[in-house]
């Protein structure tokens, strides 16, 4: 629970004595963090590399004086050590952080920033024990998509590390296709700073906390469609016509027949032509049970069931063909007498070559 929460209505109020005291305590703690960081051990000049150069130089002078044959080897060794010394000097120079000392923040300047935050944001929260400071933005709406207010939480123990703050949606309306994206530029409570990255780093290093929070807020209030985790046009997702679930445009399919939107689970690929189809535009073959689009499936002309071309012969399914064959094999009924006439029995089996018909 926040040790202190100052909620501001529209118009932003001034701080009271008790809130000011809490802000002062927070400023002192934050000031201590900056003080500690500034007292870190300074980098050492490259003395070992310099001593090495001296040592080889002495050997070279000795070899030269005594006319030893190893002079060339020693000169080569001296050049190598001079190269190492140059690299060590460059490294030492790059490790110097002289600029940051010009902007070592004091508790006074930090306190002034915290007081100013009360005027800029709807709410400010201080957790002295847990070591974080939060501001709450006004509700954010981008291109008609309401994203709600966000909490920007700064952890003062991590001020100068790579991940000093979180951005948390308080009334989340995340992207339909990815609920970890609460804002086009926020995923898993982490803001992708983009153009603001360098300025944010500078503000945190120099203890300009008001500038830091303003920078983060302005990024949240700006939409960059070219580089969003999920574009606002896809925010509500694509609704599948068959099952009604939402998915991103990248993960959705269109029915090749009627054009409706489908999720990956409901999209059926025709086993013949490969076209994606919805449930209304595709059927399963009664014979092989595979899915086919309406172009690649036809009805058996006898039973009317749907079959693929592979399961039809002369536009008839195998069941109907078998039934037809059975019909052909049955013996036909022969009447024994008729009135006034003798009728030759209809041969069950036609006369074959070499046979003569014998009247009944």
């Amino acid at each position, binding site marked *: 629970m926040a040790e202190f929460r100052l909620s501001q209505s529209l118009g932003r109020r001034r701080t009271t004595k008790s809130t000011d005291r809490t802000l002062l305590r927070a400023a002192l703690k934050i000031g201590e963090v900056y003080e500690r960081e500034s007292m870190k051990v300074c980098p050492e000049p490259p003395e070992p590399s310099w001593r090495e150069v001296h040592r080889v130089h002495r050997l070279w002078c000795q070899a030269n004086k005594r006319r030893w044959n190893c002079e060339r080897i020693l000169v080569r060794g001296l050049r190598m050590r001079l190269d190492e010394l140059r690299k060590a000097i460059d490294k030492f120079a790059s490790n110097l952080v002289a600029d940051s000392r*010009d*902007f070592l923040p004091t508790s006074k300047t930090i306190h*002034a*920033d915290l*007081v*100013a935050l009360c*005027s800029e944001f709807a709410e400010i929260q201080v957790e002295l024990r847990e070591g974080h400071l939060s501001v709450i933005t006004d509700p954010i709406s981008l291109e008609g998509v309401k994203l709600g207010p966000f909490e920007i939480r700064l952890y003062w123990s991590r001020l100068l590390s790579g991940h000093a703050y979180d951005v948390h949606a308080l009334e989340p309306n995340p992207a339909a296709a990815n609920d970890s994206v609460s804002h*086009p*530029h926020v995923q898993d409570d982490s*803001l*992708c*700073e*983009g*153009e*603001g990255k*360098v*300025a944010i780093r*500078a*503000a945190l290093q*120099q203890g*300009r906390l*008001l*500038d830091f929070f*303003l*920078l983060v807020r*302005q*990024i*949240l*209030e*700006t939409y*960059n469609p070219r*580089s*969003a985790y999920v574009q606002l046009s896809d925010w509500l997702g694509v609704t599948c016509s068959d099952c009604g679930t939402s998915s991103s445009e990248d993960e959705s399919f269109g029915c090749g027949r009627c054009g409706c939107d489908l999720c990956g689970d409901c999209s059926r690929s025709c086993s013949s032509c490969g076209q994606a189809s919805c449930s209304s535009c595709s059927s399963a073959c009664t014979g092989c049970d595979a899915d086919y689009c309406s172009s690649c499936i036809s009805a058996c002309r006898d039973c009317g069931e749907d079959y693929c071309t592979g399961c039809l012969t002369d536009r008839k399914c195998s069941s109907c063909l078998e039934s037809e064959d059975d019909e052909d094999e049955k013996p036909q009924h022969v009447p024994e007498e008729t009135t006034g006439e003798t009728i030759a029995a209809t041969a069950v089996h036609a006369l074959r070559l070499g046979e003569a018909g014998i009247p009944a």
Partner: protein
Amino acid sequence: MKILFINNDGGGFADHIDVAEGTTVQALFEQRLKSARPEDYLIRVNRQPVSPDQVLAEGDRVSFTPTKIEGA
């Protein structure tokens, strides 16, 4: 006179600079951000919003923060 000037645009700039006595906020903006529009920036003097014609004083803290900063 010396003021602390903070430009939070791009890479960020924060340093003490010399400005002529009687320089207004608007004049400083035009000097420092020649092609920009003031309405595209949050302009604060000593952490407070000010009018463009406010005259700067010795030791003032002036900051310009873009209203549109594109995330990635």
